[in-house]
């Protein structure tokens, strides 16, 4: 319908190209946080520099606290968030681990915060290249977690994160991961919303815990009789967040002409062989699926966009009865690939065969051809229960 198209074109005014770090910085600028605290770490640094630029020219009216460590990064924005400010930070790898204590603190305190994780391998060995170990290490912290497939998603998910995290039904911090170098430093086509549209989608934040008229001790001791009740509330909030996230994504899709959901089903409905993946290599997996389909193999991809809360219902619905191959860029030593564990758990009780593939650690490249071969091996019965793609 011409009217509909026009409306969408109105809202999607700018078509350009940006590297991932700048795309996220641009989204942050549009979200208008008032307090930022960022500590440089590869591969996030060019985002920090862009933000510092915006602040110094006044394009972004925010305070950028240049703290002395990542632990202080999250401590400062936790404090600022308690006082009612919209806040943002970005980090990776060692930095995320160094702030881990405060990540748990923010999650437990149920305050809106948005953090971008430029995913990067954890040392030793020292590595600046991508994998998902860092963001997966934070999966128990009561933060919402999402992963971007490309620069466009990194931009959109950033805006979505501010809105989701501040939603009164949610009130949880949210982190979005986007692959280090592969997305942070790669230039891709990007459609950005205009400022007015973003303003309408992201109303001014209205939530603070510090109240001089009604003073309280925030985060005080809670004995055995009460502690667990707060954790149960967090669990309930996480569960109900699944619905809130879908609703907010639907609203965004209307405005932006996008198609976000907690998972993406790419040629998966009638697939016999179902790849499950998150992050940048989902794009490579899609390419592999297309090639396999050309060859007559019924391959498909279930892309996980929102990892926390884990979309078990979607996974159960799409994966049940298929031959599943989970691609993992993070491993729980002594057990299994992290995503594989979640997928198997979602499929508990069904007779679904799940193969776990561990690949791409420390930035090792994984090509669509390698992914195709996994499906081929699966079809010929030579794909193990767990394969490390070395």
């Amino acid at each position, binding site marked *: 319908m011409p009217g509909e198209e026009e409306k969408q074109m109105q809202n999607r005014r700018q078509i350009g190209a940006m590297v991932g770090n700048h795309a996220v910085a641009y989204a942050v600028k549009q979200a208008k946080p008032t307090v930022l605290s960022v500590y440089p770490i590869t591969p996030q640094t060019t985002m920090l520099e862009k933000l510092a630029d915006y602040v110094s020219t006044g394009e972004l009216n925010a305070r950028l606290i240049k703290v002395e460590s990542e632990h202080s990064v999250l401590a400062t924005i936790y404090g600022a968030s308690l006082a009612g400010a919209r806040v943002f930070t970005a980090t990776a790898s060692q930095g995320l681990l160094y702030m881990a204590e405060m990540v748990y603190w923010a999650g*437990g*305190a*149920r305050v809106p915060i948005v953090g971008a994780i430029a995913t990067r391998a954890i040392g030793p060995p020292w590595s600046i290249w991508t994998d998902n170990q860092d963001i997966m290490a934070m999966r128990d912290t009561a933060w919402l977690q999402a992963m971007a497939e490309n620069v466009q998603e990194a931009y959109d998910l950033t805006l979505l994160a501010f809105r989701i995290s501040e939603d009164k039904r949610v*009130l949880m911090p949210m982190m979005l991961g986007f692959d280090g170098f592969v997305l942070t430093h790669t230039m891709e086509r990007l459609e950005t919303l205009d400022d007015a549209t973003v303003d309408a989608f992201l109303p001014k934040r209205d939530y603070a815990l510090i109240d001089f008229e009604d*003073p*309280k*001790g*925030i*985060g*005080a*001791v*809670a004995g055995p*009789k*009460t*502690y667990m*009740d*707060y954790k149960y*509330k*967090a669990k309930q*909030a996480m569960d109900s967040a699944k619905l809130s996230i879908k609703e907010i994504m639907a609203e965004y899709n209307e405005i932006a002409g996008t198609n976000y959901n907690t998972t993406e089903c790419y040629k998966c409905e009638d697939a016999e062989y179902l790849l499950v993946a998150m992050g940048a290599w989902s794009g490579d997996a899609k390419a592999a699926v297309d090639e396999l389909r050309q060859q007559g193999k019924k391959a498909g991809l279930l892309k996980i966009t929102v990892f926390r809360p884990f979309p078990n219902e979607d996974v159960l619905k799409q994966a049940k009865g298929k031959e599943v191959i989970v691609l993992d860029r993070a491993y729980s030593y002594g057990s299994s690939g992290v995503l594989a564990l979640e997928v198997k758990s979602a499929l508990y009780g069904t007779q679904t065969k799940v193969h776990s593939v561990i690949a791409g650690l420390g930035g090792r490249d994984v090509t669509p051809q390698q992914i195709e071969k996994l499906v081929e091996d699966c079809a010929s019965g030579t794909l193990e229960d767990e394969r490390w793609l070395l």
Partner: protein
Amino acid sequence: MAEENEKELVSMAKPSEGSGGKTGTWRIKRPEIDYDKCTKCDTCVMFCVENVIVKDSESKPVIDYDYCKGCGVCADVCPVKAIEMLNEAK
């Protein structure tokens, strides 16, 4: 869980007297002020570490025995030794 905290998403402590309990029950010794000796200098009021001594309408120091822990600081700082620490058991 306490009713007021039902809606709190994280632990919140509201301003309350006796947050440490009825701390007067901790006492082994109990301060007694001899008002004949007392010069109303306010030293005990100033230095009572638990903030349980206040001045009444006649500026006399009054101890709240519900919360006084019997530490003896007031007796120690009183410049005219008007406060005696007596055995609580008596």
